[in-house]
């Protein structure tokens, strides 16, 4: 399973990467991006991700814009938004933009595992 992890905080990328590794994903099977611009570039270049995990608030291009970009090119790749934005309005906005699931920080490793399992099996 190939995963793209997008977050401007290097600590968050490592935390998510750690959870993903606990699920059995090898380190070389996931890529990291510090903003939407880098992530969009990677997505276009590789075009082989099974899941995208993205933050919302990031410099240069935010997560919502990234989701919209990805959805113009790929309608099926599962996208999970992992963000501090916990408002109902934000969740609806993200879902409308095309995310498949939504996790509010701080989250437990079990929650992310559960959501990823659901996406991969579903």
């Amino acid at each position: 399973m190939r995963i793209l992890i997008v977050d401007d905080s290097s600590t968050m990328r490592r935390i998510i990467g750690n959870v993903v590794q606990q699920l059995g994903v090898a380190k070389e099977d996931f890529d990291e991006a510090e903003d939407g611009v880098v992530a969009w570039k990677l997505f276009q270049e590789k075009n082989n991700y099974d899941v995208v995990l993205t933050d919302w608030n990031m410099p240069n291009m935010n997560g919502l814009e990234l989701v919209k970009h990805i959805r113009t090119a790929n309608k099926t790749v599962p996208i999970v938004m992992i963000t501090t934005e916990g408002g109902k309005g934000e969740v609806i906005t993200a879902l409308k933009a095309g995310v498949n699931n939504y996790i509010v920080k701080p989250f437990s490793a079990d929650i992310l595992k559960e959501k990823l399992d659901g996406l991969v099996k579903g």
Partner: protein
Amino acid sequence: MSMSQEEIEALMNGAEVIEDESGDEKESEEVVETAPEESSEENSTDEATEENLDDILAGIDGIVDDELDSKIEESVPTEISSNKVEAEPSIEELIDANQYPLPVKTENKVVNQLNEVADDSEEKASQIFDVLSFILDENNEIQNYNKSMGEFIDSQVLLLEALSKKFPNIDVFTTNLETGKTLLEASKNLSAKVDGENNKVFEAMELMQYHDINRQKIERVMAVIRKLNSYLNGIFEDDNEKPEVQIAKHISGDSNDIVGADDIDSLIAEFSNEG
């Protein structure tokens, strides 16, 4: 070499020396060294001191006598006359004197300071993560060694069980079987403890999400400050191109010392007498 205002003031007051605020120790030391000599001659050589002063003033480019006099009058604090060498004021003293917050420099700007805090925190969080990752890696190594030892001990226990059954009269087989079972149990306990430790490390890694959350809270404060700055600049902006008028220092009704009519009369009388 041009002299600082403090040096001029020190010379004018004989032995009085003010600590150089700019931290130019060399110049301060020169003043401290020369001041006592002048102090000792103060009473006997008033005229000579005046001449020296004129020479010094003449050597300073771009300072008009009247201008210098007025500056000196304004800037000579009353404490100087008490022959004290003042220490650098503390922050509390600066606050009391309304000289705080600090001057607007890059390092003192609030948004810059907050940004620095966020960046430092990110760097330290990354280092903490390195430490936690190292512990996890080491624990995995321990688990691997322990697994190999456990497998070997398990095979030895099976062997000793067979031997002790076949040779029940040989005590060493029975004794070693018991020891093997104890070591096997210890190996399982060690594995459980390392697993427990790993869970705690994962828990710590999860808690480190608060670093990111706190960073975003700081960024929210920075955004508010930027907006506030923009708003205050706008609301205090002066569209009128009228030149700035010098403001009055003492106005009737102020709580600070205002001279009364009697005071003015006595001052006039005093200065008239001198004239």
